[in-house]
């Protein structure tokens, strides 16, 4: 009886906890505009997540092309941790 009770209670508890945790840690996506230069087509704008900024170790790229904060090569070349 006790074992059966636990077999029902344990998964129910785990599922409730996971659902609660998912809602508790829900965060709004923060996006920003970024720009890249495509040969023949000029500057293109894409929406990216906010983990790209002026600092970081690896470059922020879109399809392998470096992203910039403005449609200008003199602007910040975006990087991410």
């Amino acid at each position, binding site marked *: 009886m006790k074992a059966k009770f636990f077999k029902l209670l344990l*998964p129910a508890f785990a599922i409730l906890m996971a659902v609660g945790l*998912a809602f508790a840690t829900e965060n709004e996506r923060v996006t920003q505009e970024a720009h890249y230069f495509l040969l023949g087509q000029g500057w293109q704008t894409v929406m990216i*997540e906010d983990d790209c900024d002026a600092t970081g170790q690896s470059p922020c790229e879109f399809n392998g092309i470096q992203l910039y904060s403005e449609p200008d090569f003199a602007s910040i070349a975006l990087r991410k941790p």
Partner: protein
Amino acid sequence: MANQGIHSKLVTLFSLLLTLLFVYTAVSKLIELDTFQWRLERMPYIAPYASLLSWKIPFLELIIAGLLWLPRYKIMALYASFMLLGIFTLYIVLVLKFSDSIPCSCGEVISALGWTDHILLNVSFMVLALLGILWSKKKYNTQTHQNTT
């Protein structure tokens, strides 16, 4: 024999942890389904299947989490957990090794982890699933042997 008792409890604990992981990640994706799809669309190799995968992945995770608690399907669910985590880990490794553009990290709490930490987390859960398979099979074989003798 005493080991089997411990193993059985550990398999329950592993199932509990895998359930937590799968339900948490599935619900997180479903809460922000459009965001999840948006992220998938920016992932290398799988972008064309983004709309399909954005539904199928959380659905599959919830099914596996449920099957982990049905004794008849437990081993199958542990295999499925191992494979799902394995595919995801292999995908991350391939992206990190061969893709020009590394996607943004995934959402929620796990987003605090880098991709390398993500691989470590996945491998840890894969080990739990693998141990669960081995110990559940051992128990199943012993029970079958006892019933036939």
